[in-house]
């Protein structure tokens, strides 16, 4: 194993982390402010990817496609919030799980109804295609570097939004005491719609960014959704900082686990068995990480201690 290969794998881990952050930040924001667990977050990711693929096919512009993914996911998010999600804030988590599980069925099969059963095409724009050479002789995909950069920019943007703007103040106030800020004259239901749409837009953006690397197809959001859950559980639900740290941690663990475990087993086993067993264990590595974090800190790395409810 060379330094160059290792460095490339670390970059891969960061890129996965950046993508997970886009998903997890929306989930954790919605949970922090509204106390809502949203299983349909993966569907919004899928909607973003489909919207991007449709617009890219029609216009040929990747930037327009990204804009469309933000708009479509935000619109879908706002629509769902007003029609369904709004009724769930006062319900227990069970009702939220069920209702958003139902939304997954509707979104998945509804998208198939509209777009058909075959995967759609979405490609990396020519100006971001191909590899670049980084210092140290590392050849790396420019597009993946772009995703890392966008993830970092979104993290910074969210930080500024929450700490420096008026809506950020309202969001923080809503996290601590929703009756109080309603009493202070903030239109709380409008605020919730905005927050939900914002989380949806981030998920849509993640879907659109990943679309060119993967296949745009029905059900693409579910594996990512579960990874995002693991991220926010490790980071502490409701914590933006936790989501960022845990995204990177999960991204690196998953990528390096897939890479290193088969090599480690290969040291004392037949290579064919070693790859099979190594990859079987690698597929569990992030769950082991999660179990470990929870033993040490039951509310995640940056979670606030819960009242026992």
């Amino acid at each position, binding site marked *: 194993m060379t330094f160059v290969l290792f460095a490339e794998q670390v970059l891969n881990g960061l890129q996965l982390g950046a993508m997970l952050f886009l998903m997890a930040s929306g989930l954790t924001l919605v*949970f922090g402010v509204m106390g809502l*667990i949203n299983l349909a977050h993966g569907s919004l990711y899928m909607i973003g990817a489909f919207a991007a693929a449709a617009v890219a096919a029609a216009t040929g512009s990747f930037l327009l496609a990204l804009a469309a993914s933000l708009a479509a996911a935000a619109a879908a998010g706002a629509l769902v919030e007003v029609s*369904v999600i709004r*009724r*769930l804030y006062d*319900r*227990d*988590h*069970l*009702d939220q*799980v*069920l*209702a958003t*599980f*139902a*939304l*997954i*069925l*509707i979104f*998945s*099969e*509804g998208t*198939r*109804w509209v777009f058909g059963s075959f995967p759609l095409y979405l490609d990396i724009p020519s100006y971001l295609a191909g590899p670049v050479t980084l210092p140290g002789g590392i050849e790396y995909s420019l597009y993946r570097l772009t995703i890392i950069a966008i993830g970092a920019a979104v993290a910074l943007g969210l930080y500024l939004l929450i700490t420096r703007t008026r809506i950020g103040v309202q969001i923080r106030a809503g996290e601590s005491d929703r009756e109080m800020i309603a009493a202070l004259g903030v239109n709380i239901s409008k605020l919730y719609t905005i927050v939900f749409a914002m989380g949806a837009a981030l998920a849509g953006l993640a879907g659109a960014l990943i679309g060119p690397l993967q296949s745009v197809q029905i059900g693409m959001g579910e594996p990512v959704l*579960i990874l995002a*859950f*693991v991220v*926010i*559980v490790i980071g502490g*639900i409701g914590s933006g900082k936790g989501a960022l740290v845990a995204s990177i941690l999960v991204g690196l663990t998953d990528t390096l686990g897939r890479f290193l475990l088969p090599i480690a087993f290969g040291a004392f086993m037949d290579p064919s068995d070693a790859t*099979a067993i190594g*990859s*079987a264990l690698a*597929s*569990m590595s992030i*769950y*082991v990480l*999660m*179990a470990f974090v*929870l*033993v040490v800190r*039951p*509310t*995640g790395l940056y*979670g606030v201690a*819960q009242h*026992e*409810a």
Partner: protein
Amino acid sequence: MKREPLVNAALFLSLPAVALWAVSTDEPFTITLATRTAILALAGVGLNIALGQGGLVSLGHAAFFGLGGYAMGVLASHAQTQTPILEWPVLIEGATSMPLIWLVAMAVSALAALGIGALSLRTSGVYFIMITLAFGQMLYYFAISWPAYGGEDGLSIHLRNSFPGLNTLDPIQFFGLCFVLLCAALLLSARLKRSPFGLALNAARQNPLRVRAVGVRPFSLRLTAFVISGVITGLAGALFADLNRFVSPSMLSWHTSGEIIVFVLLGGVGRLFGPVAGAGLYILLEQLLDGVSDYWQVFLGALLLTVVLIARGGLIGALAGSEVAHD
């Protein structure tokens, strides 16, 4: 509340009634559907102990359902090929006797529930939901990639396992067996609810601080409930695998967990007979909607949404009045 026992009795008796009617009209597939309903209801009864009585929203019960199924698959496939499961340190042979398989399935589920529960119950609320989900997925990926027992292909067995004195290949006899187990689980669930343990569990769900104040640890109450719940769901998994003569990782997937919750919710959370009503309704819908459109899951989703948003209390709630039994 008066109507609920009536509704329960009617719902409950309709299951064997449908099965017997199917025997008289020679419709073996309807018996298969009734058997499937009974087994899925059993899984729901298991989950309902954690969910309804303990307030523990587990999105990972597929883990126990699947482990029960694999207990059946592993034992039966070893018996089929006449190879021992383990030769050292002790010789363990395969088995085709249902009571033995059930015991193993329940023991394995109990161990898994103990482990998962001990870790997951350190948390609560939404953390608990996500952690149980993640543990379920962990087992799912493990089952897919572990080569010994078929991986994603799953395990097929040629003959249904045997039960002393019965011909389990006869659909109605196998239905009877599943139905008796469902009755036993319902009885256990009802007894549990009224026992000191059940009352303490219920109290821990409503007000953990007060329970703690009288010297009872909510953690151990919940862990016990979670283990009992996992054991019953594991038993259902073994029966389900025997019904299909097949087990695969899809039994462990999070969609299965979601569906078990759906049974409980469709029938009415915390209601003793809720899972029976819910599983019946779900299978009925599946049979009816499937023919309507290729996109029938859209309608299923819409219906679920309606139940959650409007018809709270599920089918039993709608039939027996809106008083919620558990509050």
